[in-house]
């Protein structure tokens, strides 16, 4: 936890001294579109996933810190630090993730592919659910026990995204391999649609005008694994999403995911705030 606190303090210091850049944060929490971070820009985001399970199981809160940096126009890296806390079960650092997204094609196309590769060094207490793969409900063992079960995972995604008449339509296919255990490749999906509510931009600064809002919905879930065929006991959610560009630099977003199957939590409430600024070049 001291690492998290240090990072939050450093982030706050950077924010105070940063120069403006317009955040282009997607409204989705799980689905990725084809828009990468601008080269030389750093985005710092804090978010939280609050899970409300069924059958009176313990609820949980899983906050995470996300640092996203645009290395080039076609390559973006992200580092995640995540933790988890439950009502009567204490808190734990749940691990880190290192993500890379590559956009192989030069310009805009009808369908824009992005390749995604992520290495995860997490433990079984992880609850942020940035993606859902495989099958089976989340474990309800105590956090103290779950955090002892480490997992090194390699995750790949094929991201397909299109801009269609003002709408963004994105589809992600997810493959995840736990390198620490003898198990198959787990599969998952997410799809999202969203659009800006604005038309013409107004000439003045405004907070509540339509152009500052993006709305949409996403659906995500697991598709079993190569060793366990079938969709039984898989988790699926559908979630309306909303993004609000608070200022030129920051975006607030929220969603409520509704569990669609018996294995799914009843609700996944997500809230996030992102702040983007240039750290290299620019003015």
């Amino acid at each position, binding site marked *: 936890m001291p690492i998290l606190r240090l990072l939050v303090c450093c982030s706050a210091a950077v924010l105070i001294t940063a*120069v*403006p*850049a*317009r955040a*282009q944060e997607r409204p989705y929490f799980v689905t990725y*579109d*084809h*828009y*990468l971070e*601008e*080269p*030389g*820009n750093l985005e710092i985001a804090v978010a939280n996933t609050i899970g409300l399970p069924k059958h009176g199981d313990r609820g949980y809160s899983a906050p995470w810190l996300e640092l996203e*940096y645009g*290395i*080039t*126009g*076609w*390559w973006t*890296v992200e580092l995640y630090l995540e933790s988890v806390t439950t009502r009567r079960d204490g808190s734990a650092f749940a691990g880190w993730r*290192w993500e890379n997204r590559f*956009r192989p*094609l*030069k*310009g*805009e196309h009808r369908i*824009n592919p992005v390749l995604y590769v992520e*290495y995860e*060094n997490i433990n079984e207490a992880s609850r942020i659910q940035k993606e859902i793969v495989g099958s089976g409900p989340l474990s309800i063992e105590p956090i103290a026990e779950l955090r002892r079960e*480490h997992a*090194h995972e390699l995750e790949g995604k094929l991201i397909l995204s299109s*801009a269609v008449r*003002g709408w*963004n339509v994105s589809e992600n296919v997810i493959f995840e391999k736990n*390198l*620490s255990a003898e198990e198959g490749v787990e599969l998952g999906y997410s799809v999202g649609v969203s*659009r*800006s509510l*604005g*038309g*013409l*931009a*107004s*000439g*003045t*600064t405004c907070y509540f005008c339509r*152009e500052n809002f993006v709305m949409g919905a996403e659906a995500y879930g697991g598709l079993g694994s190569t060793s366990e065929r079938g969709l039984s006991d898989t988790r699926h959610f559908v979630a309306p999403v909303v993004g609000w560009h608070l200022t*030129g630099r920051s975006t607030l977003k929220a969603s409520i995911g509704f569990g669609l199957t018996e294995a799914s939590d009843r609700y996944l409430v997500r809230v996030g705030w992102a702040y983007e600024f*240039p750290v*290299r*070049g*620019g*003015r």
Partner: protein
Amino acid sequence: MITNERRFSTVSIIVTLLVVTFAPVVGRGAGGQERDPMWIAPADAARRTNPLANQPSAEAGGEKLFKQRCATCHGDDGRGSEKGPNLATADVLAQTDGALFWKISGGNTRGGMPSFSFLPEPQRWQLVLRLRELQPRSEAVTVGDRFADPPVRTARSPTR
């Protein structure tokens, strides 16, 4: 298991160090002042005209959008920075509104120019309006003459 974990931790640290070391080097090669000569709008895209051409009320929004979306790289005055090239040049401003709109929309990932297709279409046309404002009055006639063929389809008269 412990051996595996140690191995993965070592690999993770090495990879992270590699990225931290080489990312700035790789990044320096992207974007910047250089232009991509192969970045040319298709003819049908270049022929499109700006639907906001006769709406002066849209210009203020273009100014705001330019500051939010473009100034970080191209500067408040559009004359460039170490991240992005000068836009107030004859070769940029001689391009048609449709070509500028196409470039704003699609970007050029190889050149470091992001895609702005997530912006509503009217807002991208507002940015084109703002780009036309970059054209210095004294240069307008010159640009129009030098790039007379193909004809310059701008939101405003090039002699303004």
